[in-house]
């Protein structure tokens, strides 16, 4: 068996986690591949500010730090922000796959330009961060949002009839007005809309979570992993410090309700 660890960027209940796990149904993986979903111990409430990006990097690094000795063969991150990916790549030898980087590279193998389709504009910053890192800003035709506050625990469930047409209309504008050849879903939490959009749009729609699982499979099969010159190892690995920090964050947050956003 080949095991992929999928890191989920928010602490959550089993029921909420099932919404994340449902992504695996959208892709055929080799029969010897197992996906294991692991939520982080503590997290920022949303990913909309540089405060959140920094916290996200640290808590995802911590959640995946032991992946190799836990017997996993690859790690995927369940957020297109690719939070924690660079840091995990610096300490792990097994492939660490970020759906953002993977989605953008795949998009430009399918067309010249891609557009980002988002729930709200507050996510645009995390897209431009990865685009700039990759030097692909000029390949992004546009970013459009439907101005609906996302629910990063329950996702789109129960809101399909309202949200799916809004997403389709925004994506059509990306194609017709902005010149997108490919639509990138702006979050792995939008996966429930992927099938609808793929059926109702004239261009490819990339569902980033399932794509990342398939790319992890590909990397394992081809025996490829991240480049050590791009992701050098730390001279001093502060593993104990890292775990202590995130444990302290979890203790500080313990018992507090998830903050309301509206």
């Amino acid at each position, binding site marked *: 068996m080949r095991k992929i660890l999928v890191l989920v960027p928010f602490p959550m209940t089993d029921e909420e986690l099932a919404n994340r796990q449902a992504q695996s149904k959208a892709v055929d993986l080799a029969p010897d591949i197992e996906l294991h979903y692991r939520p982080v111990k*503590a997290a*920022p*409430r*949303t990913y*909309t*500010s*540089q*405060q*959140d*990006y*920094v*916290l996200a*990097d*640290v808590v995802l*690094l911590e959640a995946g730090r032991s992946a190799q000795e836990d017997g996993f063969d690859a790690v995927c991150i369940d957020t297109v922000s690719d939070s*924690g990916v*660079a*840091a995990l*790549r*610096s*300490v792990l030898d097994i492939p660490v796959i970020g759906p953002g980087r993977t989605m953008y590279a795949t998009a430009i193998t399918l067309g010249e330009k891609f557009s980002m389709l988002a729930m709200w504009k*507050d996510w645009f*910053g995390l897209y431009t*961060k990865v685009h*700039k*890192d990759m*030097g692909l*800003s000029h390949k992004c035709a546009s970013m459009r949002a439907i101005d609906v506050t996302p629910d990063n625990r329950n996702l789109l469930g129960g809101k399909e009839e309202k949200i799916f047409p809004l997403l389709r209309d925004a994506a059509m504008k990306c194609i017709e007005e902005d010149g997108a050849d490919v639509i990138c879903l702006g979050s792995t939490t939008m996966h429930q809309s992927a099938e609808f959009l793929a059926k109702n749009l004239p261009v490819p729609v990339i569902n980033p979570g399932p794509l990342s699982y398939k790319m992890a499979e590909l990397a394992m099969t081809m025996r490829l992993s991240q480049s050590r*010159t*791009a*992701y*050098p*190892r*730390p*001279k*001093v*690995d*502060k593993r*104990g*410090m*890292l775990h*202590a*920090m*995130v*444990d*302290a*964050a979890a*203790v*500080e*947050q313990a018992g507090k309700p998830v*903050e309301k*956003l509206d």
Partner: protein
Amino acid sequence: MKKALVIVPFALDDAGVANRKAQTKAVKLGPDIEFDFRPVTAGPTSFMSAHDWALMEMAIWEAGMTAQDEGYDAVVIDTMSDSGMAPLRSMLDIPVVSPGRASMLFALMLGNRFGILAQWDKALTRYKKATAEYGLADQCAAVDHFDEPPDFANLLGGKEDKVFPKMKAACERMMDKGAEVICLGSTTMHQAAQFLAKELPIPVINPGPLTYKLVETMLGLDLSHSKAAFPAPLVPKPEMVHAMLQAAKATEKK
């Protein structure tokens, strides 16, 4: 009196902080501004890997997070990596000035293409990342190094005769590749700035002192960072961040 807080990126002792503070002597500042230097609570030991950068972001952010409440008028980050700048800007209204971004953009006021002098080959990745992130890769003529492991406390002290000529040679190689301005790649190189400025025919930017002067400029012009570029968090988590760094410090005492 205006007060700026300078965050020193390593948990240094008083002597180490004094070496950092010596940078203020390199620049003439107005009489009504003072700089307090504060080391981080805990942080990475090395600074060459994405693992280190993630910890450094947290460390500097935490050290500066309360600056506004403490009455400071500005925050300066004493590292060319600009670690912690983005989260601090998201949480603070007072100017947060950092030398990496500032020295590259200042270099473009003095010439069209700049070179960045790195300490050793292990630092090269970080500069590539920074120039790409700021959209300045085309303006960066070269990044070169003088092959000397960094000493974050003693800096270049006692090694001048051996190291300064190697620094000059690296700058000259960058000039051959089209560099019109040299950015020192670390605030820890400040002791070599005067030597290089004398020996080289092009401007040499000493990043620490540049930031002190920029703080004065920002405060004088009543300017600060754009909240459109650095949006405030919807849910700030300062207590969580403090708890994390206190826990980090405890692991260093063991």
